[in-house]
């Protein structure tokens, strides 16, 4: 999909940030294929899907 746009509710986005999971690497199990917090947690337990921890340094992309 263009721009690697993921269709993820805010609560799952926040959890992904907290845990360093890369959302674009996940398959959604929610309705309509949405990524749920459970998917993020499962990825974390797996240790596989997670990819790199989100970098703590400033990202260049402004709002």
């Amino acid at each position, binding site marked *: 999909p263009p721009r690697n746009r993921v*269709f993820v509710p805010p609560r799952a986005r926040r959890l992904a940030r907290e845990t360093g999971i890369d959302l674009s690497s996940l398959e959604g199990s929610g309705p309509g294929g949405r990524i749920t917090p459970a998917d993020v947690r499962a990825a974390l337990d797996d240790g596989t899907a997670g990819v790199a921890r989100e970098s703590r340094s400033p990202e260049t992309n402004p*709002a």
Partner: protein
Amino acid sequence: MVVGDVTTGTDVLIVGAGPAGYVAAIRAGQLDLDVTLVEKDAYGGTCLNHGCIPSKALITATDVAHEAANAEEMGIHADPAIDLSGMVAWKDDVVDQLTSGVEKLCKANQVNLLEGTATFADENTVRVSHDGEGQGSETIEFEHAIVSTGSRPVEIPNFDFDDDPVLDSRQALSLTSVPDSLVVVGAGYIGMELASVFAKVDTDVTVIEMLESILPGYDDDLKRPVKQRATELGIEFEFGYTAAEWREADDGVRVVAEPADRTAGDDEEPDPLELEAEAVLVAVGREPVSDTLDLEAAGVETNDRGFIETDSRARTNVDHIFAAGDVAGEPMLAHKGSMEGQVATEVIAGEPAAIDYQAMPAVVFTDPEIATVGLTETEAKEAGFDPVVGQFPFRASGRALTTGDAEGFVSVVATESKGYLLGASIVGPEASELVAELGLAIELGATLEDVASTVHAHPTLSESVMEAAENALGRAIHTLNR
């Protein structure tokens, strides 16, 4: 806070108490940070004192009068008299309630409030000078700072806001008698909102706009109903002209406007336009307030338009200094500033916050209102999606018809394959409120099917949101599907 020439310290120093700064400060208090908020002028900033709130108050009030005066079709015969000074006093009262509310909320959340003008001394120190009462200045050391100094109206050559008949939006919102006539320079959202306010109390309004249409940046089909209603209200438009100068005239000003795209050396010199009016309102845009607080002393950089660039954590180029709101760039909207202010504070508090919204709503409070969120069809295509679009016209909405105002439509954009919502645009009654559901839908990753199969109360305008989603799926009930 101790005043005088002493040095105090604070964990988080916030400069500017507009919707970016005061929201950041309240959030900081909630997160138990030691926070100091410096404001030189008035709590609530531009938005509460001279922007969003006063403009919406006058828009609503003039609407009440205008609707009643034009409801003969509904069997209502009224000829309301407008006392603008009374209206403005009411508006000021609303503003006072809100700004004193902001002050109380700050105090209740343990925010240290400091009145004065802040300038940076170095990257960990500001000086705050207090005018009036000769209270001198003080120095504050901080661990983290948030710059939220907002924006101010752009001035154009020869039109000085200090001159009496030349108004900025702030002054226009405080007139105490209805001008017979008004020239508005600029057909952006502020110019168009105020043009409607005055047209509704029977001012003869002429709008001069450099470009060829109102509301640059919005799709033509969204602008059309606004342009048409403005024309019905008697607003005249002079497109393709820029205001060049003004002279005093019998009852006010004579504004001279020149064709905007005059090519140098053109054979025939096109005629300038001369317009007489009681006053001239200049609303050609806003620019960041980033040049009056010695940002250089702290090492904070601005771009060529004067905005402070930030990353997704609201951080400037200096790691412990953040920026939020109008000074941090477009869109210059209050809710965008509040969101950035909260993110800045949460990041300072060590929370995993980020500016990661999918969709930023924008509202134009013209008549009818325009509201957009997320991507337009064109933007979706540019982003590489293969979008589907659904539309529902308000003239097919029972609720819209019962309000006597059924112009406009709801339009939704979604991905072809799974129907994920990407954006929405609305022009029509309560567009500003209807857009909320679609903003949530986009943030949640909702699909057209999700919106279409949610039961919406009858008779409401929000059914039109559902029907637009159904239309995109080929199964709207109250309009024909393509």
